């Protein structure tokens, strides 16, 4: 079947199996392999992308369901020569080791910071009625859908804090 998506600002037409996940569409059909498959079941977060501006697991949705939708992947944030502040902060803070979960962490952090700005509460927010401050426990809770087996967690959050201060 055919689906047309806007990926990183560019319209992309796909001819795909109806069963193709959005993740496999991005990786195997569009060659955007920066988005990783760590579990294929929404249990690790490595495939996190932005769908119409919100972070989701690309593995847990079908490409067929996204006709006309806007997708942002890690390739849409920056390049090695021109990294986004978050990407650059991950390098500075060593917010990774093997690098496999990194695209997911960065995309998730991008979506998470927007959620925080919009006043989205979390499980650990002291209050539901007031907006949440960007404390480390808040960020840790909100980033918990992104596993990092190398366990760069403290440095990932240091990078997120650094990038959000720069903004």
């Amino acid at each position: 079947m055919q689906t047309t998506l806007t990926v990183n600002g560019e319209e992309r037409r796909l001819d795909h199996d109806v069963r193709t996940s959005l993740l496999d569409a991005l990786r195997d059909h569009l060659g955007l392999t920066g988005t990783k498959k760590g579990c294929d079941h929404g249990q690790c977060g490595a495939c996190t992308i932005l769908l119409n501006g919100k972070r989701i697991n690309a593995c847990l949705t079908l490409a067929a369901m996204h006709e006309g939708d806007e997708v942002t992947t890690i390739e849409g944030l920056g390049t090695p020569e021109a990294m986004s502040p978050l990407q650059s902060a991950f390098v500075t803070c060593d917010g990774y080791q093997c690098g496999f979960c990194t695209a997911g962490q960065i995309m998730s952090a991008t979506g998470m910071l927007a959620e925080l700005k919009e006043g989205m509460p979390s499980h650990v927010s002291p209050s539901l009625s007031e907006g949440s401050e960007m404390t480390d426990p808040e960020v840790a809770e909100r980033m918990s859908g992104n596993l990092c087996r190398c366990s760069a967690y403290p440095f990932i959050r240091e990078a997120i804090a650094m990038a959000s201060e720069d903004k």
Partner: protein
Amino acid sequence: MRDFTYLRATDADAAAEALGPEASIIAGGTNLLDLMKLQIMTPERLVDITRIDGLSTIEEDGDGLRIGALVSNAALAADSRIRAGYPVLSRAILAGASGQIRNKATTGGNLLQRTRCPYFYDTAMACNKRAPGTGCAAQEGAGRMLAVFGTSEHCLAAHPSDMAVGLRVLGATVEVRAADGALRTLALDEFYTLPGDRPDIETTLAPDEIITAVVLPAPRAGSVQAYRKVRDRASYAFALVSVAAVVEMDGDRIGKVDLAFGGVGPRPWAGDDVAAALAGETPDEALFRRAAGALEPDRAPHPDAAFKLPLLRRTLVAVLREATGLAEASPGTDHAKDAA
């Protein structure tokens, strides 16, 4: 994943028409696709309802709120009316899954998510829920995450939802629409069935019915509401046990109390008897322990899951202490206000 035909429904009638025993609705897809990849669910037809108008809003409904079936978990938890008037629902949703999944998962889909029993998930193992009549491999298997209430000799699986526990404690109802347009409204205990000898049947939904909304009664302004989830890691894990509580105080005494428990039953498990034992009493830890001690299952739990009973009792005591002011409230315990 087996092959299927994909149909994008543009209105509820079209969706209803396409439904049937071999079809499945897809909305958020966060659990359905997970199951389809493993061929635990093998629908021949997928009916995508995400483009149907009118199912994605939260609207006032008398004194309460009507939540469209397609409202995402994230949008529901963040809605200012929910946060103010029904904080236990926000907290329950936020305790489940991850930020990414909550952005995609829907209200209707969350209610219909399947058990996470590892034997249901492993197609090499017997499971009456997945393949009726094959047996229940969990009975003699590894069973740490199994239910302790409402089980049968045919199934020990627990319902994994946090949101549904929040809805149960609030007395929410589910609105379903049949192909002919007829609407039914069901309390959660009417919506969910117990496994009995047909654990493959989990709800009273007919094959041609669609969940259109969840309806919340009027907010309980002034109540203390709490959702406490105990799990094997600090976040992003299913509940070992969870406790949802709505507690109203009547002066120094406990007024109306509602309780529901997660991780322990095949549906969000109501704690009506315990709640009744608390009403009219003066808050006291010994009282809470006594009341919690009355929680007893009908059948002996799987030995691996037997710990859930003492853990649930203790968690309930902790929640009641905070909700009644015996202990300082921690995140998860909030005062409900008027939703408007």
